[in-house]
């Protein structure tokens, strides 16, 4: 298990170096995105007003205080369950060149192939650890689609963002697949002995 520090937006070369299980810390810019944001992009066909190429997408809907038009103070920013949004993985990579999706709880196996094909990774964060995560967010730089509050498109500047684990890498590896496979085997044994 290697440790890495990465700055986003990132390149395909950066991403291909990562392997499932590696520990990563991130600096730079990340984009907050959630269920309704992606439904608007992919199901309602609206182009996202922020550039997603090379982007790190964070599954989030933050607690914020409005300071003025388009300006928000971060109060508490944490990360939501990713699995609900798995069907957007392929088009995020293919159409927009997204490089990383970060959330909690993992993505199902259907994300493995798009990530391999498009050079993407899934980062697993510690769910619920929002107080700590908020200290790693320096500023909310931009907000688009405020009508979806709190499920807008958010642009955050971050420093020392993590710890993150590579849950799915761009080579077909998935930590979540491996854990689930082992757990299913164990489950069979446990049930057989009930």
């Amino acid at each position, binding site marked *: 298990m290697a440790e890495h520090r990465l700055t986003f937006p990132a390149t395909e070369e950066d991403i291909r170096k990562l392997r499932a*299980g590696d520990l990563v810390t991130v600096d730079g810019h990340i984009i907050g995105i959630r269920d309704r944001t992606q439904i608007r992009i992919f199901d309602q066909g609206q182009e996202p007003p922020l550039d997603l190429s090379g982007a790190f997408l964070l599954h989030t809907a933050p*607690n914020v205080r409005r300071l003025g038009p388009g300006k928000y103070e971060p109060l508490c920013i944490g990360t939501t*369950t990713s699995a609900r949004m798995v069907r957007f993985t392929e088009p995020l990579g293919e159409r927009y060149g997204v490089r990383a999706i970060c959330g909690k*709880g993992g993505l199902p196996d259907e994300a493995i192939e798009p990530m391999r094909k498009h050079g993407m990774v899934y980062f697993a964060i*510690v769910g*619920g*650890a929002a107080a700590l995560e908020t200290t790693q967010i320096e500023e909310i730089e931009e907000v688009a689609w405020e009508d979806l509050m709190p499920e807008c498109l958010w642009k955050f500047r971050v420093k020392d963002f993590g710890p993150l684990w590579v849950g799915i890498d761009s080579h077909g590896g998935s930590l*979540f697949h491996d854990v689930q496979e082992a757990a299913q085997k164990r489950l069979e044994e446990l049930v057989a002995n009930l």
Partner: protein
Amino acid sequence: MTVATDLQQVVEDTAAHLYVWALKDIPQDLRDAIAAAVERETSVPGRRVLETIVRNVEVAEERQNLVCQDTGIAVYACRVGEHFPLHPARIYDALKTGTERATVEHPLRSNAVHTITRENTGPNTGHRLPIVHWEFIPDWDGLDVKCVPKGSGSENMSFLKMCVPADGVKGIKQFVLESIVGAGGKPCPPGIVGVGIGGSADYAVYLAKDAITRPVGTRNSDPVVAELEAELYDLLNQTGIGPMGLGGDVTVLAVHIEHADTHMTLNPVAVNYQCWAARRASAHISAAGDVDLDREF
């Protein structure tokens, strides 16, 4: 009339306080359970996850911030004494207004949406929100209010199975095991597994929710049920799901079971998961309006 009006205000103020308090300050029983989990976890990522959780709870305290960004749906459990001088209809109004005030004044993220249009309904209240569970206590004039903000990550990992009598207790155990393995890292493990058995379909689900509101370390008062809690706790911690589903020894912090007697042909089992950030805050309110805040209830 004046007493009732003042009492309504007291309940409203208490609800507003409990909602924010629950979100910021994790109860001691849970802190102890997480600390013990760090000690016994042997997987490297699992341990790092648990250490990050401990750090997060400290940061929330230092900065007076919310532990988790998901302010949840506000769920209240009320125990109303027969002689408490404010009618439950007014208690409900007070809990609703208190929830709204906390959301606006803090401010807290508003999660409540119309279930079909998905339009945000406002300050964490709406049609039938907040959710209030009632228990009525004879020969008493007090009110206990417990606020349990319930995050969606764990609530989405709720399951019901109408086992048949021939499935027996084995069927119950198997369903709980399959549910927790299937949930994997999604509900923010390690948390509290609430299990409701018996009653009817709807009541089993309610009992599972009631079970997650108990402090860690409490056991069901029926020894037969308490034994099942202990057995399921051991079984679930052998699945290897681990903290945040990254693999490890600690998959759950506790298993709580609540039960009801049932029909001879029924054997319902429900699972309601509560994440590691098992937010909970309580208050005891006297007939005179004195408020006693309680962390360990």
